[in-house]
């Protein structure tokens, strides 16, 4: 009975809780957190059910109000969207389990709006991945972006400025997408993705079609911070509260990458961006530039969060690289990297949250081996996630890069192979810079308190468990990578490549 409403359940749970949180908040601030957490767990459960149904029975469609598409709006739960919604809801649950104390200390007094807006953010993000209608997607994109601006702006002193710059660029991106949509609608008279996929191959290659494709790719590229459109990202992630950056960094840009994948390979036919227009090649070049640029700037950063933000620019470019190549291997790598990078970045940002709570800062030049004495488990989680980012097998990060390298070799793109290998080296440089300080740099103590006398000040279980779960998951994602690729990822790829 409830099964047929599954596609709807995930966003509606978040939306409902976004409305309930202010209401229960009237009774007391402390009730906001449990409601958010319970809603998120319920949504995770619904998404997991959705994934198992979608993998077993194929795509599941839900027409709103009984209006059959293409007239009405539909939600589609196919393997790609259901896997993305499991990723979104699962990571949100873990981050929310972690969130209670960081939120209390960083945005104290504003917990009710914070959790409510977080739920709105998740409504938007899960809506984007589940909807089967391009205009509906735009609306969800703006819901998630507006919520994202808000939870960035409650951060440190410069946070509102960063959020405003993000808003300006994000709105340009959304408007570009809307312009592209206008042209597509003028040509086809339809907004439904499945309907468009059957109409577009019959259209001649006219300028409006090209403009609409290009505008949508550029607009989504801005939202996913694809180099050189990444200008808003570093400030926004650096000044946001830890919980916000732990939600936005792994999820926000990934969802934009999902939209790019959806538009380029499911709405337009895969050959459109590859053979008819050189969009795939352009994406590949931009991605190669972004991979190098992000890693080099990450080395130069003094603040850990900012370093992670620049590393995000570089990692997003890996995903764009896979999408740009557009072959079976490359898309496997891209989708796998969406999953892996979400886990790695979430783990890293949670550790930064732990650090800020315990030592009160995350400036790299002040790190020394008191950190490993104070919080050994958090630093262990950081090390695992960092090694995975560098690409050490059997951790997850190795395998997605491996697929991308294979895809580049398949295309004989030796320059790209060299860039991927070089950036692995560069990311080793910027992560080992941190690890070296944490594990080898002797304590810079003032006042004679020695290393031995430091008491352990590890964070509480509620924060430690999600951090360790995420980094432990990197082993699982890595070791069972073949199973994941053949059972799940291959079902997610577009049928005709």
């Amino acid at each position, binding site marked *: 009975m409830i099964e047929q409403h599954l596609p709807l359940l995930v966003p509606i749970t978040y939306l409902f809780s976004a409305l309930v949180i202010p209401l229960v908040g009237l009774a007391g601030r402390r009730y906001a957190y449990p409601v958010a957490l319970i809603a998120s767990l319920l949504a995770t459960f619904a998404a997991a059910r959705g994934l198992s149904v979608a993998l077993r029975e194929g795509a599941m469609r839900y027409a709103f109000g009984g209006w059959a598409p293409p007239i009405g709006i539909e939600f589609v739960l196919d393997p790609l969207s259901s896997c993305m919604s499991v990723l979104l809801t699962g990571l949100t649950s873990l981050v929310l389990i972690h969130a209670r104390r960081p939120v209390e200390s960083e945005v104290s007094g504003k917990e009710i709006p914070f959790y409510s807006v977080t739920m709105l953010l998740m409504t938007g993000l899960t809506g984007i991945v589940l909807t089967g209608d391009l205009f509906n997607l735009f609306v969800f994109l703006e819901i998630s972006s507006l919520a994202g601006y808000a939870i960035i702006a409650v951060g440190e002193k410069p946070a509102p*400025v960063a959020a405003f710059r993000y*808003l300006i660029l994000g709105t*340009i991106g959304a*408007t570009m997408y809307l*312009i592209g949509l206008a042209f597509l*609608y003028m040509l086809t008279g339809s907004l439904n993705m499945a309907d468009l996929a059957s109409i577009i191959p019959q259209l001649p290659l006219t300028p409006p079609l090209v403009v609409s494709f290009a505008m949508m790719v550029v607009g989504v590229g801005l939202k996913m911070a694809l180099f050189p459109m990444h200008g808003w990202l570093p400030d926004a992630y650096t000044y946001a509260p830890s919980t916000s950056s732990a939600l936005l960094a792994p999820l926000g840009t990934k969802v934009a990458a999902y939209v790019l994948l959806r538009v380029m390979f499911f709405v337009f036919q895969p050959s459109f961006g590859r053979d008819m227009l050189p969009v795939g090649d352009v994406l590949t070049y931009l991605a190669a530039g972004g991979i190098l640029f992000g890693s080099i700037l990450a080395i130069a950063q003094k603040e850990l969060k900012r370093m992670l933000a620049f590393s995000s620019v570089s990692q997003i470019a890996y995903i764009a690289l896979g999408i740009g190549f557009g072959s079976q291997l490359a898309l496997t790598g891209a989708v796998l990297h969406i999953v892996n990078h979400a886990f790695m970045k979430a783990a890293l940002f949670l550790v930064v949250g732990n650090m800020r709570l315990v030592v009160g800062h995350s400036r790299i030049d002040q790190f020394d081996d008191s950190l490993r004495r104070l919080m050994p488990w958090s630093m262990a989680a950081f090390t695992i996630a960092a090694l995975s980012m560098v690409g050490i097998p059997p951790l997850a990060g190795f395998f997605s890069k491996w697929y991308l390298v294979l895809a580049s070799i398949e295309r004989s793109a030796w320059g790209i192979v060299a860039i991927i290998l070089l950036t692995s080296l560069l990311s080793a440089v910027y992560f080992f810079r941190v690890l070296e300080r944490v594990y080898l740099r002797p304590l810079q103590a003032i006042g004679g308190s020695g290393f031995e006398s430091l008491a352990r000040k590890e964070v509480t279980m509620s924060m430690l468990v999600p951090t360790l779960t995420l980094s432990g998951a990197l082993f699982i994602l890595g070791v069972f990578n073949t199973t994941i690729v053949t059972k799940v990822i291959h079902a997610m790829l577009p049928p005709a490549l």
Partner: protein
Amino acid sequence: MIEFIQGYYAYWAIVILMLIGLYGMLLKRNLVKKLIGMTVLQSSVILLFVASGTKWNGTVPILDVGRSVDDPALYINPLPHTLMLTAIVVGVATLGVAFALLISVYRRYQTLDEKTLLKQMQ
């Protein structure tokens, strides 16, 4: 060249609006002026949709006994207008959030000039 302009006046006006909007958003130093640019850009896209749905001698798609009902050329497609109602709502919400951000920026820095702000953020 002339036929490229003739009959497309509405679209040319929209393109000009779009460029004004982008210019304001990207090149103006004052953050409020950036927002004005944003509103102009959004309005241009709204006009683009609405213009695409217009027809000469068309009317609202409500049953009119005096007109034939089987000729779609007599009625305007209402969907672009409906979509733009949603887009207007999205635009208003964005503007509201942006103003809230600006208030908080001004309270923290006492300025809305981008260059001064970036200098103070260092």
